[in-house]
């Protein structure tokens, strides 16, 4: 028999007490990991969405800032327009390397039921685009043809192997992009030509016509020249072009960031309280246990155990309980966040992406270490006290 086996026997000897300590470790680990998964996942989503956007500045009609953020992050379809001429005005501004217009369209609500409803469609100009084109060239070596689309990770073909019907028009799903965890996963990208073709044919083929106002675009994506002052550029754009708002990509999703920060602060406070209370409760339980087992520990000192053995024995029990509770909490946390991800996104109002296996492994490790540290910290003082006690005094009535 060894220290581990002895500790296991002692744990099973009082299941209620062991259960309470494990439960505290469970709560600490589950809470910590869930918070980490949500917050870091949200940050990753935002970063990937911005990377996908590829632009330094996005110019939208004034008052549409919130709409475009909802569209990109949460996949809420939007429609807003500004004159196409804005592209030329912006292109003429010094310090701008490239500009590319985009059209934002939406499918009919429930049009293709049960695959993806309310799709957010982004039409781009292949002559000037610098976001989708590079990805297409890297993966396919050529552009999208008329009627071809690229979908976010959630888009799937509903008509046969490769086709999707939108506004009565059959498009071919050429490929799916990598997941971002944001509304871009429910988006579809195609060229301006495809957009206009869909619009013109929807008059006869669709239940509701897709209307694209003439000479209109929804947004202008800007790539700044290296070393440009983005704030100065934005100010210049607002002077040159009326009724528009330039949004710096670094400022994009500010409202979501604020929402996340607010939520994070609340969660951290709750977590700190939970952690503190758990430490106190575990400390009390171990003190009670050490006191109750005072005679027993005195006996094992009498038959040859060192003070160190008694100390290690108590901490071994603490560690085993922490590991059991912590591992269960972590497993449940990962499982719940993974399978309830869509519900969480819908409830919290911001997206998050689950981390890669390597990062998840690291976060799990940190969660376990936190659980182990917390329980051992709580058990430390009672363990020191009882191990230092005179065995004769410990065994007295």
């Amino acid at each position, binding site marked *: 028999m060894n220290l581990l086996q002895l500790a296991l*026997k002692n744990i099973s*000897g009082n299941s209620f007490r062991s259960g309470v300590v494990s439960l505290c470790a469970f709560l600490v680990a589950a809470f910590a990991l869930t918070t980490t998964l949500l917050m870091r996942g949200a940050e990753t989503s935002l970063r990937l969405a911005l990377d996908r956007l590829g632009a330094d500045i996005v110019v939208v009609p004034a008052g549409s800032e919130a709409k475009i953020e909802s569209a990109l992050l949460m996949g809420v379809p939007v429609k807003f327009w500004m004159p196409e001429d804005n592209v030329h005005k912006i292109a003429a501004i010094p310090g701008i390397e490239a500009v590319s217009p985009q059209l934002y369209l939406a499918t009919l609500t429930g049009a293709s039921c049960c695959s993806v409803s309310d799709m957010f469609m982004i039409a781009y100009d292949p002559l000037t685009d610098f976001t989708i084109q590079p990805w297409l060239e890297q993966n396919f070596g050529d552009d999208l043809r008329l009627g071809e689309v690229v979908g976010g990770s959630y888009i799937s073909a509903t008509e046969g192997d490769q086709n999707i019907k939108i506004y009565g028009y059959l498009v071919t799903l050429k490929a799916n992009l990598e997941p971002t965890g944001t509304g871009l996963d429910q988006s579809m990208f195609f060229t301006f030509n495809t957009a206009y073709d869909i619009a013109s044919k929807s008059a006869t083929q669709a239940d509701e016509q897709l209307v694209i106002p003439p000479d209109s675009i929804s947004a202008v994506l800007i790539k700044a020249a290296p070393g440009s002052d983005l704030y100065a550029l934005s100010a210049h754009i607002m002077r040159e072009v009326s009724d528009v708002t330039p949004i710096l990509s670094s400022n994009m999703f500010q409202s979501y960031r604020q929402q996340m920060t607010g939520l994070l602060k609340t969660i951290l406070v709750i977590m700190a309280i939970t952690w503190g209370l758990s430490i106190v409760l575990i400390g009390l339980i171990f003190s009670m246990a050490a006191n109750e087992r005072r005679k*027993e520990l005195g006996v094992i000192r*009498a*038959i*040859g155990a060192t003070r160190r*053995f008694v100390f290690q024995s108590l901490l071994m029990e603490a560690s085993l309980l922490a590991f059991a509770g912590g591992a269960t909490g972590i497993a449940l946390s990962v499982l719940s966040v993974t399978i309830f991800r869509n519900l969480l996104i819908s409830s919290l109002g911001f997206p998050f992406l689950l981390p890669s296996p390597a990062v998840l492994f690291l976060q799990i490790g940190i969660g376990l270490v936190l659980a182990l540290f917390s329980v051992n910290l709580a058990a430390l003082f009672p363990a020191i006290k009882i191990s230092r006690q005179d*065995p*004769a005094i410990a*065994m007295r009535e």
Partner: protein
Amino acid sequence: MIKLDDIIKDYSLGKGSSVSAVRGVSLQINPGEFVIIVGRSGSGKTTLLNLTAGLTRPTSGTVLLDGINLWSLSDKQQSHLRSQKIGFVFQFPSLLPTLTVYENVVLPTVFSTKLNPAQISERAKLLINQVGLGEKLVAFPRQLSAGQQQRVVIARALMNQPEVLLADEPTSNLDERTELEIMDLFRDLHLSLGITIVMVTHTRQLVSYGTRAIEMAEGRIVNGNHRE
């Protein structure tokens, strides 16, 4: 050989006051003796036994075990010595409730042993059979009577083949018949193993089991051959 030299043990009661449990006791116990220390409750006999085993530090005086001053050793050395040379039988039920009879008996080998696992198993089963509980190997303490539990404690005390067996009122919680059975067991062990036994008791009638009797009162030896 056990030698206690002018041992004093005071317990602090707080606020500057203390009580003397042992007042200047000198005692030598030779190998192979069966010494019975009698005295009323509070006479200091249990404290004397605890001092002998190194379970409590004397306020002054020395405790020598085979010429080694117990309190000159580190905790690790002292625990090792205690594990190897001393077996302890307690007054109260001292088996670990979460361990079986077998696991309780092998417990001392967790702290130190000269035996390999097969030898440990063999010796444990032998001892459990010797104390008459061969069929109770996997029983838990709660499934045994007080007398049976005490037999297991004796088996545990002998596991590491100690030179000295210290017994602190081992029969005080037992009925008369079981008490005599346990005392017979002690005598048989003394005769068969030649082990040194130091036993404290408040029952004068048990004095006849020993080779020497010592009486204590108010922390001092008042009667008996306490010095060679």
